[in-house]
């Protein structure tokens, strides 16, 4: 029996040590990669691309479902991004409200003859609308039959898009004016072909947004949204930027991602059946590049370019996280052949195993750990001194990591104009392990169980209710 216990202890100890090592590595790599980014940024003017006559074109694809209340302002805000060559493709995914009539009225749209080339699968496109206003000639509205998922709607947009790069976003995301410039700079300033780029996302919950345009960023007041903001900052600046250093980014979130259209199509487009369609897409794109024996990069930049409305109720939050957990599990299952598969190079040897061992297994290990603790307590086999010491350390380490990502965030740019916001954010780090983290672990486990027993996910319903975020900052600390 003692042998069994020490073996279990050993496994847990090893796991924690490995995890610790990963975080220490991320700590170092994220600083390096952010410094590199700022150095490159500092050695050029933002106007270079803005004033360029040969800047590559970008198609912004944004699906909308029952967004009648905000659609006009949101489209308008997408139409005023600063970039010399881009178009906006809004996909009305069979809305049941007056999303489409509103767009038609506001932008003076008419149906045009358009033969859609179905390069990636999607539900039937009923009509393509263009504006009679010359000033809106870069706007295309796609009206399609509801496909029940964001993936299907984005695919429809890809089939209509004209430019070689696709910016995938949600209509309810508020983008910074310079979004396209920053993302395209990242694409063009690389050694290898860049197949996807992402940037930091934050919560728009308490920020001052006027007519779909961000006027001033602020820390969310509701505690749940504030936890999410903190989680996003950590996940992007520490996680994504850290992996960026090794060119090992596992996911570009669905809230804001710029993709190489050719590879997107070659990989088959988004999978409407996936619950984590953004990560699944990037996974397939990476594998496609490896299959073709082509070198590639997936990149992240530390600047915040997108503000999204985070779920503000416990119910919504758990539902979102259950979906992410199920999505992750689906990916682990469908693409398991990549696991430690040398022919997928760094993707097969680093990205995928990391995701499987640390992203996917972390909540499971955590729950098992708690059970093990309880077992030890019940059998009086616990060394209390040691246990408390460990807990204090883990707690302090998590507070440190969070504070460090806040530091990195401030290094990149000072997003909060008010000083008390940053103080509050730093204090939130102390509460997170007690309040927010258990919710996330609970949701993940619930998601795994649902996925295992094949419960049908209430995808459609959830997304429809409104302004929620179908995006997943993967690499979030579990």
């Amino acid at each position, binding site marked *: 029996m003692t042998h069994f216990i020490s073996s279990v202890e050993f496994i847990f100890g090893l796991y924690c040590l490995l995890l610790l090592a990963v975080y220490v590595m991320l700590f170092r790599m994220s600083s390096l990669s952010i410094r590199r980014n700022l150095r490159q940024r500092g050695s050029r003017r933002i106007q270079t691309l803005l004033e360029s006559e040969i*800047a590559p074109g970008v198609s912004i694809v944004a699906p909308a479902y029952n967004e009648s209340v905000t659609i006009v302002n949101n489209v308008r805000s997408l139409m*005023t991004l*600063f970039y*010399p*060559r881009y178009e906006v493709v809004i996909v009305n995914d069979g809305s049941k409200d007056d999303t489409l009539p509103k767009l038609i009225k506001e932008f003076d749209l008419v149906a045009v003859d358009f033969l859609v080339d179905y390069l990636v699968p999607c539900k039937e496109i009923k009509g393509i609308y263009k504006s009679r206003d*010359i*000033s809106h000639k870069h706007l295309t509205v796609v009206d399609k039959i509801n496909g029940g998922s964001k993936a299907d709607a984005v695919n429809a947009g890809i089939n209509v898009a004209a430019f070689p790069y696709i910016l995938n976003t949600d209509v309810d995301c508020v983008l910074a004016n310079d979004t396209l410039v920053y993302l395209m700079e990242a694409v063009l300033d690389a050694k290898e072909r860049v197949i996807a780029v992402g940037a930091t996302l934050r919560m728009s919950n308490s920020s001052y947004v006027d*007519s779909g345009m961000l006027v001033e960023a602020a820390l969310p007041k509701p505690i749940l949204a504030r936890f999410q903001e903190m989680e996003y900052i950590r996940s992007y600046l520490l996680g994504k930027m850290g992996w960026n250093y090794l060119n090992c980014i596992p996911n570009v979130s669905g809230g804001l991602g710029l993709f190489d259209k050719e590879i997107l199509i070659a990989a088959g487009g988004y999978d409407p059946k996936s619950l984590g369609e953004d990560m699944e897409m990037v996974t397939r794109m990476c594998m496609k590049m490896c299959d073709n024996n082509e070198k590639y990069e997936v990149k992240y930049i530390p600047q915040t370019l997108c503000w999204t409305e985070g779920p503000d109720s416990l119910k919504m939050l758990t539902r979102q996280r259950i979906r992410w957990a199920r999505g992750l599990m689906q990916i682990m299952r469908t693409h398991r052949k990549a696991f430690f598969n040398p022919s997928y190079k760094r993707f097969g040897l680093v990205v995928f195993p990391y995701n499987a061992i640390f992203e996917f297994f972390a909540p499971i290990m955590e729950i098992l750990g708690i059970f093990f603790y309880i077992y030890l307590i019940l059998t009086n086999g616990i060394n209390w001194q040691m246990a408390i010491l460990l807990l204090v350390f883990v707690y302090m380490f998590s507070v440190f990591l969070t504070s460090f990502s806040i530091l990195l965030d401030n290094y990149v740019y000072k997003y909060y104009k008010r000083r008390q916001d940053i103080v509050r954010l730093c204090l939130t780090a102390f509460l997170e392990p007690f309040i927010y983290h258990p919710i996330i672990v609970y949701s993940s486990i619930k998601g795994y169980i649902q996925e295992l027993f094949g419960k049908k996910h209430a995808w459609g319903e959830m997304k429809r209710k409104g302004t929620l975020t179908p995006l997943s900052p993967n690499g979030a600390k579990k």
Partner: protein
Amino acid sequence: MWDKKKRILVVEDNEILLGIMQFVLSREGYDLLLAKSGKEALSLVSDESIDLIITDLALPFANGFEIIDRIRKSNTNNQVPVIIISGYRDDNSIVEGFEVGANDYIKKPISPSELISRVRLRIGHA
């Protein structure tokens, strides 16, 4: 009134350029209205009488193309001359600017004396 000063609406979100244009044009004797976003500009256009509009293209809330397009399609004051000042140097932007109904297109950086003569060409001296 025949001796009323000519009035120019300047739409620009860059403080420095806005300041320079304000300084240069008011020295020439023009009366100025300033707007920092497309929204402000559109509300000013509908409320005030204006002799000339100078606008940037990359603007928050409504870009320069849209401002011009809306003015040209409105019922009042739709003939007002418009000069675009923009950092976009590509042919598409320039062509589109004239398509929506701009009368002139100046690429940044601007020369103040050139700006004044182009303004005079449209509406004469103040």
